[in-house]
């Protein structure tokens, strides 16, 4: 990455950091009246609750599928009010909360986890809804299973929140460092990790002290703390491996293939809570920004909380929302926006800005950590030119949003690229569907031809057999036929008589 680009991003980041750095403790929000769980279309799922059923906090709503998604758990006790599939194919489960939040967890395992094998722990994680809380929501068990062939050489704990707007991991480390270290120990056991690296930002001495104190109290074998420069986007898994473990991960290779595995701090805390309290994953800490009032909060929220609920109290209504942080952004549709395991940061009613035409200044290319040419990608995104986009390697875009940050014309490049990728994905699906339809049609055509050929052949065989038979048998061979023929001959010889009565 270009040093000047790093500098420009860094100065921007420092400016925002100064504005946002005030300590933001984790607070808990009262339960919303409803919790909504949406399951994306096309995914395999196995819903185990019915409408009008009463559920407890932590009860399984959707069972885990082996090698598939992890389970989903009720965020609060209450009644299932609806379970329906909408026109787009999303399945929604809604819980009307009863306000008691009555919990019924399985028994805690505690220190017995040391006698459990990696596979047993994976089962446990998978059936308690453990997914990565860093933003990608990948099932924890799936990640460990991908390592299975060889023991993990390095377990990297990602505590580098490089996006300046996201403060939740920071708050978690400051307040729950011992839980985090406990979770790291369990995760290291589950992965059979030979080495544990806890990566933190180099400009946060308070976090360093907190982590070090927790490590002294509850040491994790072969662990070390690594401070990395807080240059955005160092928290991106691939880059973090390169800077913290000094193991470069080549393109097109997943870190797990090299025996490297990484977990977010929040994920580690979730692991600790599961082992020590038997608590499945149904909530997270989210940084909530309200630019209209300038408020920044770290809220402990249940998954499925509608974002509308977060706006209550302030006098504005929810007009728009951006997930993720200042640099990365992701705009969900307002109607259905809820807190999900991926929501590490929510910005409610973000400021609107205008956008001008691209002046081709090339700043975006200078800051791109993947060394792409965002402005060329933009040219080929509208109108969409999939061939050119492939040539410019759109698939290597990590959607970090650096280009958006430096663009002097205020163009939402990353969003345009996301849309282009979606459009290309759709096109590919359509082409595949068309190809399948073509194959189906060809197969049908083949089958029909084969069937008609077969039936014709059968007919021909039958006819041949028949003629064979008629030839073999002499005309007088059949006595019945002889009788019939003679009768016909007799009748034709008979003089014709008129038997009809004369008309009156």
């Amino acid at each position, binding site marked *: 990455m270009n040093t*000047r680009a790093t500098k*420009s991003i860094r*100065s*921007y980041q420092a*400016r*925002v950091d100064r504005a946002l750095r005030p300590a933001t403790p984790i607070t808990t929000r009262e339960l919303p009246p409803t919790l909504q769980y949406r399951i994306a279309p096309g995914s395999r799922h196995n819903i185990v609750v019915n409408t009008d059923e009463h559920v407890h906090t932590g009860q399984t709503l959707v069972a885990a599928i082996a090698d598939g998604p992890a389970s989903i758990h009720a965020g609060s006790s209450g009644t299932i009010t609806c379970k329906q599939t909408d026109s787009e194919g999303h399945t929604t489960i809604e819980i009307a909360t009863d306000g008691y939040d009555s919990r019924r967890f399985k028994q805690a395992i505690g220190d017995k986890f040391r006698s459990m094998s990696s596979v047993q722990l994976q089962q446990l994680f998978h059936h308690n809804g453990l997914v990565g809380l860093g933003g990608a929501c990948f099932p924890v068990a799936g990640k460990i299973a991908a390592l299975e062939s060889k023991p993990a050489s390095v377990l990297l704990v990602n505590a580098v929140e490089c996006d300046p*707007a996201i403060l939740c991991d920071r708050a978690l480390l400051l307040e729950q460092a011992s839980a985090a270290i406990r979770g790291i120990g369990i995760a290291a056991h589950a992965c059979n990790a030979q080495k544990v690296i806890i990566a933190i930002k180099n400009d946060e001495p308070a976090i360093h002290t907190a982590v070090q104190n927790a490590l002294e109290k509850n040491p994790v074998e072969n662990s070390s703390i690594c401070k990395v420069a807080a240059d955005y986007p160092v928290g991106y898994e691939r880059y973090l491996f390169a800077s913290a473990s000094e193991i470069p991960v080549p393109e097109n290779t997943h870190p797990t293939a090299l025996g490297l595995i990484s977990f977010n701090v929040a994920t580690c805390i979730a692991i600790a809570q599961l082992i020590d309290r038997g608590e499945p994953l149904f909530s997270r800490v989210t940084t909530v*920004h309200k*630019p209209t009032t300038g408020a920044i909060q770290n809220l402990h929220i249940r998954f499925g909380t509608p974002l509308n609920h977060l706006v209550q109290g302030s006098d504005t209504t929810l007009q*728009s929302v*951006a997930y993720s*942080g*200042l640099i990365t*952004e992701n*705009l969900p549709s307002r109607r259905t926006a809820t807190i999900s395991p991926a929501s590490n940061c929510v*910005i409610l009613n*973000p*400021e*609107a*800005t*205008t*956008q*001008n*035409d*691209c*002046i*081709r*200044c*090339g*700043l975006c*290319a*200078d800051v791109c950590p993947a060394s792409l*040419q965002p*402005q*060329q990608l933009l*040219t080929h995104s509208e109108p969409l030119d999939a061939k050119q986009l492939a*040539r*410019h*390697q759109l698939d290597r875009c990590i959607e970090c949003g650096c280009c*958006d*940050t*430096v*663009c*002097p*014309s*205020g163009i*939402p490049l990353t*969003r345009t690229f996301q849309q282009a990728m979606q459009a290309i994905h759709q096109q590919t699906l359509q082409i595949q569907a068309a190809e399948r339809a073509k194959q189906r049609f060809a197969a049908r055509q083949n089958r029909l031809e084969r069937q008609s050929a077969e039936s014709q052949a059968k007919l021909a065989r039958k006819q041949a057999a028949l003629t064979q038979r008629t030839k073999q048998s002499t005309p007088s061979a059949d006595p019945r036929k002889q009788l019939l023929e003679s009768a016909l001959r007799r009748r034709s010889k008979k003089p014709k008589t008129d038997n009809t009565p004369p008309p009156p």
Partner: protein
Amino acid sequence: MEPVNKPFRTGPLTVNTIMLLVIAALVPGTVIHIYLTGWGGLANLLVAAAAAMLFEYIVCVLRNKPVRETMGDHSALLTGLLIGLCLPPLVNLWIPIIAAAIAILLAKHIYGGLGNNIFNPAMVGYAAVLVSFPRDLSLWPTLPQSFDFGIIQTINIIANGGLVEYTHWDSLTGATTLDTARTSTGTAGQHITIGLERWTNIAFLCGGAVLLRLRLINWHIPVSLLATLSLCALIEQAINPNAAGLSVHLLAGATMLGAFFIATDPVSAAAGNTGRLIYGAGIGLLIWLIRTFGGYPDAVAFAVLLMNCTVPVLDYLEPWRWRK
């Protein structure tokens, strides 16, 4: 496109800031230019800039664009200033106005406004008046004092058709260094000296260096442009010792203004680094070719416009991979 919601979008630079910084970097060269050309040069700058901004305003109203935001990017002001810097002093009042009109209306907004123009607007405007009024545009002062008229007299001259109408002052005008170099090529023993315009060029070089330092422009275009031009000039001098030398090519005419402020216009230049190197080299080569063999004393405008035509192909070269 629809307006987007962007959380706290306060990126380091906006188009507005970039343009203002470029204008600021132009200031030292402009000051020396005004010192050399007197009130006439100042009048050109003022008239061209005012006309460019007026046309921009009219187009904004006609195109239903937000006037404050579109005018706020200061690109029209920059275009006007560049036109004013190219014109000789004491030309007819209408010449900078026509140049500004062609630049803003034809070269810029016909194509869709800032960001969509294929040609550098200032150079289109200047080239149009250069081919339309060749005689007006060839009268350059030889010495700073040559045109040392007062304000009133300057206004009188430019409002009454420019210096071209005042034939009795012909004695005060002379060929520019490049003109001399062009016409005298091959004459044995003639030593070509660069006029005071070398100070303008040095000032633009300094301004360009500041832009490079701020990384508002990339080094690729100016470096490859100046390198190619120098290489051509050195080869030429090696073959013909009487030819205009390196210093003439680099420090006379609009070389430095062209290399740092005109060729680097991001909108009409190539976007990728490989493309930028080829683009700069092409301009350098064309400047030398036109200066040496062409019919015009200076060549920056034509060289830039010709290379603007190649930009789509140069952009197609990206991403260039040296190592497969």
